[in-house]
């Protein structure tokens, strides 16, 4: 996975650089990379060995390497947070610049230098890196470092416009933004502090999602995409806007929250702007959505049973934190238990845990860890329900990298049914409806056998197949089949009487077309044919406009009862081996194949001949039954 490679690469590249804490803002990209760098350094600084351990897996096992790195990052999250809190005292984030040999690299200049020298390829081919290094004020020996800086931070960035073009690196980094963001969104203070820079537009296009699309977010329909490789991947597209909000807004909000972690409302814009409470909430949802799409599968892995909750936003953001409320004993107990659990598993837990939350709001300071290694800000008390279900569903397996595909069953009042104790005798309590107790339970209204007709229905005609032979001129032709259907229908109507209507048989099959004028049918057919899915169109979008007199229900009824059946009738005869009438996007038969049936284009039916039309006109004297005769295939 490129993404995993990336983390490792970023980490590796960071080893080569030294980080300074103060400096000028640089590009967004660089800032993000720095973010990772900071953390890697936090890990690496005390012991160079450890960094080595983190970076080596790139070759051996990218995935686990990246995993471990991430875990490490998480462990040091709190430290980071505090560090950046100081850094950002004035509310304006100032990311550390990229340094080579203790001197900051002017990325702007580097970029223009490379541009003047004919671009990256050219510079590399002509081995001009050392000279560029000199021009930027570093030693000749630093050419390699400059190259790394350029590759990591600038390549692919259209720096002049201040817009980040998404190349692979960006995507990877963006993913991590979203991830970092995601962690903070669940109400933990672990916000990504150093996302800053120009108001860059992150083009989180659908291809990002495609990369991650082998992670299946829990969707039943996605199965289709697996089975049907030809189907479009539109399912995976991440809409760029949700409501009034978009990703840029979300990042904006996130940046503000990062300054004052713990209170999502701090992310609001100035008073009077549209960035109000609602905007914050939208940002939160947006963020979860982004996270869900990018981490479809990982979510599933990491969060077990609850994942789908978070991924699908089953729990509203307000459930994540009920602010200003002191935690109740239950919650604290839970956290303590988790703490114990985490220690047992050999996890690093900040000592702050023991003190527990005190104040209602705080901008920094005490954090304590919950069982999943996240930290909870004091002003951000998790609601008890949420914690309960989370702790039980998100097993510690997440941290232990245990069997990862296992989804947990969430436990709690939001999930289980209330089952009363069995008292030993039937429980007669019935639900009340509209304030009135229902005296008798509903048992349905009998439709069949008809009232007063109980014995008459013992006609032993069960399971009779069609007559083996018929007297039609052309047995098995479409006309013949239709004739028999009508005959059978009339028999059934006589037999079941009024039940025929209560079961909706009058609206089944070909008879639905009685209510459709020929012109309307023609419009329907043409609309379907003119909007094939191969052109990315969907006839359902066009139908209501094309046939404004028809309700959606009528359209659907016509589609299933007439259109698909007619199509199927032709398919059965033309291509019996490859029929799939459940595929709405199917485009058969082609107009060429119609010619097989003679001069009349079958879609312009209209000739009703022979016994069928007589029978039809006899029985169905009302309406205009279009009989759609297609002659038998020779």
């Amino acid at each position: 996975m490129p993404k995993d490679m990336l983390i490792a690469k970023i980490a590796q590249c960071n080893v080569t650089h030294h980080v300074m804490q103060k400096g000028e803002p640089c590009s967004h990209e660089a800032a993000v990379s720095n973010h990772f760098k900071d953390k890697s350094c936090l890990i690496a600084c005390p012991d160079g060995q450890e960094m080595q351990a983190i970076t080596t897996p790139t070759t051996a096992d990218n995935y686990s390497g990246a995993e471990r790195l991430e875990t490490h990052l998480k462990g040091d999250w709190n430290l980071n947070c505090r560090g950046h809190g100081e850094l950002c005292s004035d509310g304006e984030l100032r990311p550390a610049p990229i340094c080579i040999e203790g001197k900051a690299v002017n990325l702007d200049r580097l970029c223009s230098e490379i541009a003047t020298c004919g671009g990256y390829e050219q510079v590399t081919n002509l081995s001009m890196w050392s000279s560029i290094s000199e021009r930027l004020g570093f030693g000749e020996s630093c050419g390699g470092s400059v190259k790394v800086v350029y590759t990591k931070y600038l390549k692919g960035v259209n720096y002049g416009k201040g817009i980040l073009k998404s190349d692979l690196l960006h995507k990877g980094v963006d993913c991590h933004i979203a991830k970092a963001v995601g962690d903070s969104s669940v109400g933990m203070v672990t916000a990504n502090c150093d996302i800053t820079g120009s108001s860059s537009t992150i083009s989180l296009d659908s291809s990002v999602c495609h990369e991650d699309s082998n992670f299946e977010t829990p969707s039943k329909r996605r199965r289709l995409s697996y089975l049907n490789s030809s189907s479009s991947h539109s399912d995976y597209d991440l809409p760029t806007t949700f409501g009034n909000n978009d990703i840029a807004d979300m990042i904006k909000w996130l940046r503000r929250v990062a300054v004052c972690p713990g209170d999502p409302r701090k992310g609001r814009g100035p008073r009077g702007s549209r960035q109000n409470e609602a905007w914050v909430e939208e940002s939160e949802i947006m963020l979860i959505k982004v996270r869900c799409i990018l981490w479809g599968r990982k979510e599933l892995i990491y969060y077990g049973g609850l994942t789908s909750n978070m991924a699908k936003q089953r729990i509203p953001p307000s459930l994540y934190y009920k602010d200003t409320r002191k935690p109740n004993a239950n919650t604290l107990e839970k956290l303590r238990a988790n703490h114990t659990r985490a220690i047992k598993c050999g996890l690093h837990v900040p000592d702050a845990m023991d003190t527990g939350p005190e104040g209602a709001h705080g901008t920094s300071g005490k954090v304590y860890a919950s069982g999943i290694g996240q930290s909870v800000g004091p002003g951000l008390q998790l609601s008890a329900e949420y914690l309960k279900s989370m702790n039980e569903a998100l097993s510690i397996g997440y941290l232990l990298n245990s069997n990862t595909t296992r989804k947990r069953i969430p436990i709690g009042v939001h999930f289980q049914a209330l089952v009363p104790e069995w008292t030993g005798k039937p429980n007669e309590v019935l639900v009340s409806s509209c304030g009135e107790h229902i005296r008798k339970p509903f048992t349905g209204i009998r439709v069949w056998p008809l009232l007063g007709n109980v014995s008459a229905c013992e006609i032993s005609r069960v399971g009779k197949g069609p007559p083996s032979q018929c007297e039609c001129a052309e047995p098995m032709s479409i006309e013949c089949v239709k004739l028999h259907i009508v005959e059978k229908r009339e028999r059934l109507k006589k037999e079941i009487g009024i039940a025929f209507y209560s079961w909706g048989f009058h609206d089944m099959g070909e008879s639905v077309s009685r209510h459709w004028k020929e012109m309307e049918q023609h419009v329907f057919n043409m609309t379907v044919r003119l909007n094939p899915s191969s052109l990315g169109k969907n006839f359902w979008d066009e139908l209501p406009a094309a046939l404004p007199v028809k309700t959606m229900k009528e359209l659907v009824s016509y589609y299933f009862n007439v259109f698909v059946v007619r199509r199927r009738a032709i398919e059965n005869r033309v291509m019996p081996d490859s029929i799939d009438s459940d595929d709405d996007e199917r485009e058969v038969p082609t107009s060429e194949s119609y010619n097989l049936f003679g001069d009349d284009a079958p879609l312009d039916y209209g000739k009703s001949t022979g016994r069928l039309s007589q029978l039809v006109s006899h029985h169905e004297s009302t309406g205009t039954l279009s009989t759609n005769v297609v002659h038998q295939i020779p």
Partner: protein
Amino acid sequence: MTSKERISYFYDGDVGSVYYGPNHPMKPHRLCMTHNLVLAYGLHNKMEIYRPHKAYPVELAQFHSADYIDFLHKITPDTQELFSKELLKYNMGEDCPVFDNLFEFCQIYAGGTIDAAHRLNSQLCDIAINWAGGLHHARKCAASGFCYVNDLVLGILELLKYHARVLYIDIDVHHGDGVEEAFYQTDRVMTVSFHKFGDLFFPGTGDVKDIGSNEGKYYAINVPLKDGIEDASFNSMFKLIISKVVEFYQPGAIVLQCGADSLAGDRLGCFNLSIEGHAECVRFVKSLKIPLLVTGGGGYTKENVARCWTVETGVLLDTELPDEIPDNDYIDYFKPDCKLKTQSGNNMENLNSKTYLSAIKMQVFENLRNLQHAPSVQMHEVPPDWYIPDINEDELDPEEHIHQHMQDKLVQRDDEFYAGDYDNDHDMEETS
């Protein structure tokens, strides 16, 4: 020739005209086709057919949260844009779109299952059928996997008013997660689900190790299967496990979810069952002579769904149906072969080795052995004492228990031979 059992069959003509939306695999029109075919075979002459009442919101709220039901009630395709937040919260959108008459649809299918349970409770019938029901993914506060209201849970809750224990059996290709989750902590409902598991197949739950918790520990049984299972092994697993379960558990009533997506050639499914194999499960459950509520479920190849449920209606009525499909309004859907019983397809490789299946079987039986014997028949309706000292002794500290419990699972998982790459299987098969 009439069967001894009294059969009630529920159908509402309005349900067939429901449309989930373009290209949505779930097509309620299949119910229309099923009913049509049932009548074409004349099966209506052997049973009573009822139109269910539309379940009131307050009935639906017996399981679901009131706010979720309210939301289902008020949401329409035209107003859904105003509720984007709620849509996310209730997991509606892609899989579970908002369509016209959504709430009415839920009321009808849930009403059918509830009415069926009522009829069973009042002993007005021995078997009740509601092909419109069986939407087993719906959760207490959210929609999931094409399901909005979990009629099965509602039906079981009704049955629990008259029966000490209810057994739920699920042969849909997808795990019956909604029902399992709803009754995960109770011993009054035992859930048994046979489903495809792994490869991130929806919904992702249903590991053999998920066995319930607290009171409900050992009262959830999962039989995870792999792609392409065919009749013989499925039926033998099914019969073995169900007969053991019934013997141990002695349910007062059984709810059978007959999702037809476990048939070969289903649009979303990946099993290789023939209609005959599928119906064999129904036949077996019927033979247990326990009050039975049969529902539909998944099934995304319309004509096979109609075939399957018609055959199963016939099975429940003890009626052998001729293979030649009689004329009906939808006869063209069943052409060109026009046969009732589809063959078990061979389009899916059977990935269930004998070793794998027997490992699963062993595990399930192991869990069953941990299940205390249900009280004897004489004590049938008396509340049993479910306390099992030797199993629960580590539960003194609930936190500790969960911890221990999870660790156990983790430990076990590491050396699970069937969760790996089947190394053992290969060896076994080569030698055998």
